[in-house]
């Protein structure tokens, strides 16, 4: 994927997340991009590692910063206690309009992810994306084995919550099979 197309997919994802009531903070975008790449096999070519609040890509983080610098994205500050969020700026919208083919190619997969996780908060996304990360490394392990692994990696995530997240990821995988 060329860099311009990669940027268009990120913009498309942020717009779809917004439509599905996402807060669109950087963490929301990171986790959604991870799900898009790992679950929906959209080859955005970001390198994700397990880091703060689950899978995280420093490349994506740098790209979001570059997109802000290019005024494709803008930070929206919100009054306390609401955190900052990212929105697609006018130049970003113009860029999306110039790439109809790319938008069409990934629309179903982007919409699926946005629908599934758009309304989730940071803690839920942390659990869910970590569950996907653990599942991708040990697909054949049982739900309990994967939940234990999540709890070991992120001790602040309880075993019970980890279990729920693993089950949800398994369900999403089944449901997404028709689209991927």
């Amino acid at each position, binding site marked *: 994927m060329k860099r311009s197309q990669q940027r268009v997919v990120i913009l498309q994802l942020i717009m779809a997340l917004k439509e599905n009531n996402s807060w669109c903070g950087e963490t929301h975008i990171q986790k959604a991009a991870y799900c898009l790449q790992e679950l929906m096999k959209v080859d955005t070519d970001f390198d994700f590692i397990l880091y703060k609040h689950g899978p995280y890509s420093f490349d994506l*983080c740098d790209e979001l910063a570059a997109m802000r610098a290019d005024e494709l994205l803008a930070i929206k500050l919100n009054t306390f206690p609401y955190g900052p969020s990212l929105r697609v700026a006018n130049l970003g919208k113009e860029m999306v309009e110039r790439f109809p083919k790319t938008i069409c190619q990934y629309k179903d997969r982007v919409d699926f992810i946005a629908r599934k996780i758009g309304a989730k908060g940071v803690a*839920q996304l942390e659990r869910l994306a970590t569950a996907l990360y653990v599942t991708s490394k040990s697909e054949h392990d049982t739900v309990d084995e994967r939940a234990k692994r999540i709890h070991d990696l992120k001790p*602040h995530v309880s075993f019970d919550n980890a279990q729920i997240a693993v089950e949800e990821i398994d369900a999403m995988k089944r449901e997404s099979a028709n689209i991927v």
Partner: protein
Amino acid sequence: MAKTSHEIRDPIHVFIRLDSQERKVLDSRPFQRLRYIHQLALTYLLYPGATHRRFEHSLGVMELASRVFDIVTDPAKVSDAVKELFPPINSEDERRYWRRVLRMAALCHDIGHLPFSHAAEEELFPPGWDHERMTMELIQSDEMKEIWENARPPLSSEDIVKLALGPKKAKELQFDDWETMLSEIIVGDSFGVDRMDYLLRDSYHAGVAYGRFDHHRLIDTLRILPPPLYPYGNQLDNSKEPSLGVEKGGIHSAEALLLARYFMFTQVYCHHVRRIYDIHLKDFLIDWLGETKYPTDIDAFLKLTDNEITSDLRDACLDAERPGHIHADRIINRKHFKLLYTRNPTDFKINSDAANLVKEAAVKEYGEDKVRLDGYSKKGGITDFPVLSDDGKTVLSALQESQVLAKIPSVVVNYVFVDPNIRDEALRWFNKGKAQIITPQKEEQK
């Protein structure tokens, strides 16, 4: 009786003290090599005072790292919730172990740098190698392992690698939350002491004031904090994973650090003449290496410093038959390429990829050897970190507390340089065809 504590004079931190175990690292070949690696490559051609080396920077990073560690892991300054998630804080022995690992990691964080620091690793190292991987290899080399194993208590070389490189660069290693937080002390985006030291030190040696900030106050107010709690729907929903933040009283020092970074990048690190010298140096090194790449064998790697390259650069400048002569001549005789195009607000609103298009068009017009493209974009995400309010309990977001943070612009530069001999002609050509060159094209539908 043998001396067990050693002091080194330093222009930034006054005294840097180290014990005999740390002295062994100082005396090792990989660390001594840093005496001959310039911190800012060829920047001394513009800022003549900027001849400082990675050696003193690494000592400074060690000094600051332990200052931060002592503050943020002081049990009196850590909440019960954080203590529960980070058990090492509760154990004197564990704290002592990790403090030592942190100082060793800080000492070693730059030992894998190529001559002239960052210049063009991708082209000069064999595929799959960069200075971080070289750093890892050196920390885990037999020579250094002997030091780690003979330390009391013995130190794990993997722990040192983790803290020296952080999760971003040591991707194949699994970090727990404690190790992630400790690595942030060295390489963290907001409060990493690597950055604190280089801003202070580079500005001191370059003779500019932009990099100065009140690091004493900042370090004194650093804390390990959970993220701020944001409401989500009807519930408070956020991760509980802690990270480095500040007490509210330190927020202005944090702003000053981030402004210092902005000014140093715009005024020093991204100065167009510094950038073009880096490119000429890279071109020289590619020719100088010929068919080969920089050695990754440890003995061969340790033999190469700025001194060997500088000597060959001067020889190549004097002898037209030597590889890299033309690039050496550009550096030594100050015949560097000149600016044809700089990214600017008007053009990037038309097309954010304008510089690239200008470069492609110029190459088509004048040939590859007459044109160079350069770009830098600030790395890292939205600068936000937890802030402990005056009540000592509520954790807020820095972006909401600060009137400044969100307004600090991102540093982005794009330059197109051309050979000085064609610059006037190239400027006329560009001004005539600019609109056509930078107008964006619509993706073709199939």
